[in-house]
């Protein structure tokens, strides 16, 4: 934390205040959701450089490869996902979601930008997202993000749902 009281006795800067609020939010999350995972590694105090989003994604991808080949344990990097039709909506259920999961980035095959979706928390550790822009498309990558916008889990590739057979 760099939020020391200013030497002139004045009010803390906006950046310092923002850091305070984020830290308090993490503490509140940790208390209410029984987790010790911080959103921002800069406050861990181990002196190492914080990872960028791209570096986090690289490290996550590497661990996922290790898990898929059976070398590393899948816990902590993978989530299961089930795509299903819910009346006129198309949804994806994910499990197990960590307590720090805030959003899901859904990347359709052939598109450059992922669709960011909020999570409807279900019972236990599951959660559901409702597809909008990616509806009816093959999903190539499914990332679970924490509150700081960092990828923390990866889901499976999900092909589009088969077309509904019309019923006479």
């Amino acid at each position, binding site marked *: 934390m760099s939020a020391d009281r200013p030497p002139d006795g004045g009010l803390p800067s906006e950046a310092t205040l923002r850091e305070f609020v984020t830290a308090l939010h993490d503490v509140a999350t940790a208390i209410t959701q029984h987790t010790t995972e911080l959103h921002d590694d800069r406050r861990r105090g181990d002196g190492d450089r914080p990872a960028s989003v791209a570096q986090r994604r*690289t*490290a996550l991808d590497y661990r996922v490869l290790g898990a898929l080949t059976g070398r590393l344990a899948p816990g902590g990097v993978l989530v299961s996902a089930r795509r299903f039709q819910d009346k006129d909506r198309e949804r994806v259920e994910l499990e197990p979601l960590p307590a720090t999961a805030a959003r899901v980035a859904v990347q359709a095959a052939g598109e450059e930008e992922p669709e960011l979706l909020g999570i409807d928390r279900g019972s236990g550790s599951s959660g559901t997202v409702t597809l909008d822009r990616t509806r009816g498309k093959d999903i190539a990558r499914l990332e679970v993000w924490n509150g700081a916008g960092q990828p923390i889990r990866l889901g499976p590739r999900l092909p589009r749902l088969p077309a509904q057979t019309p019923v006479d």
Partner: protein
Amino acid sequence: MFRNLAQLFAATPGRDRRDVFLVHPIQLSRWLDEAWDSARTVPAFGDPSTLEPFLGAADVVETLNLPRPQVIGGAEVAPSGVVLADPDVFGGQPLRLQASGLAWDHAAYAYLVESTGVFEVLAEVVRRLVTGETLDTLSAGGLRWLRATEELFFRDPPLFSIGGVTSSVRPDDRVNRRNCMWRMFGMDLPHPIPARWARPGSAGEQDWKSDTGSGVNTGFREKWTELLRQVWLGIENARNESGPNATDKEYVAFLCSALKDMMTMRRRGGQLAREEFVYVTTMSWFHLTLETPDTPIVVDLRADATSAADRLAKIAQRVGMQPAARSRELFELADLMSAMLRAIELGAFDTGEKAETLYVPLAGGVNAQLLQDMNRIIDLWQSATGDRVKDRPVGGVAGSLSAQPLRIPAAPPPVPSPPPTVAATNGRG
């Protein structure tokens, strides 16, 4: 792949990794098609704007898999019926996975495991067990292993299965594997094909080196060793806050990209995907046999030891053979290098920023696994191959003290290939 199946058994209450050897070979053989198909759900890797398809072609798995039922819940083509809770029964359904699919190891895994000599040693064990009485009588578990091993790897594969990569146009599995490794890595196995198994009229190494055209990654070893050297330099300087730091992250990324380009060239259009799957599968069976404590055949051969390499050495001794001197390193390196090369191939380290994850410790231990694996790979590669990775450039020649070479390492000059065999002259000389 059989190690993936072992992992699935181990995660099932009341079961363990050795239960793979209790499954009937017909189920194991059919399960391989299901394992191939399950790779359809492996996610794409990389940044959103540069998603890289697994295996070099997004649709190669779909192209070669079995047809799916016409309707949901319809009849499957030859399901394995493997039941994780009971390996001795047939469940009538494919083995469904709840999470992401299975990914198989990189071809480097098969190359390194076969380099230990495990395939030839256990081939000799199987031969002796089925042709005479020079080894001990087997237990029921050992007999199951023998039957499954012979049926899965020492006879023609079942028709129309994903494992069918031998035929009248490429009849020798040993030659086929060497062909794949030669194309992908420009390297041969350290041991020759044993005389007993060489085919009549064999032309030696030309059997797997001819007709490859220019599609051989002859510069792989030089580039890979240079990458390890540069990463070691990065590890040495990772916490260096004073004095010069010779690490060049962009050069590390450049080497990773060069290796990626080299390997993906061999994978264009899904080439070698099926061969890689089959060869990795084959070696994983033999690796699993030795790495798991107290597998029936290891117990029957009285080869109890604390590591796969030591078990291999004991078994080899029983049949008058000797495994590779560095088999301990090779076994350990196989897993680590497989994951690293797969990540490189998928463009995981294509920029300087991402390449730094190979040697710079990042806050919160984000890349701790990567750092640990990379350091271990460097140690093992140096020990296994004798390539000096940790040495610094020395000497008084101008430029020789630079941490990076003048140019990226290139392939050694090509060896002239023999004149091509004329397939048919049609009676015109």
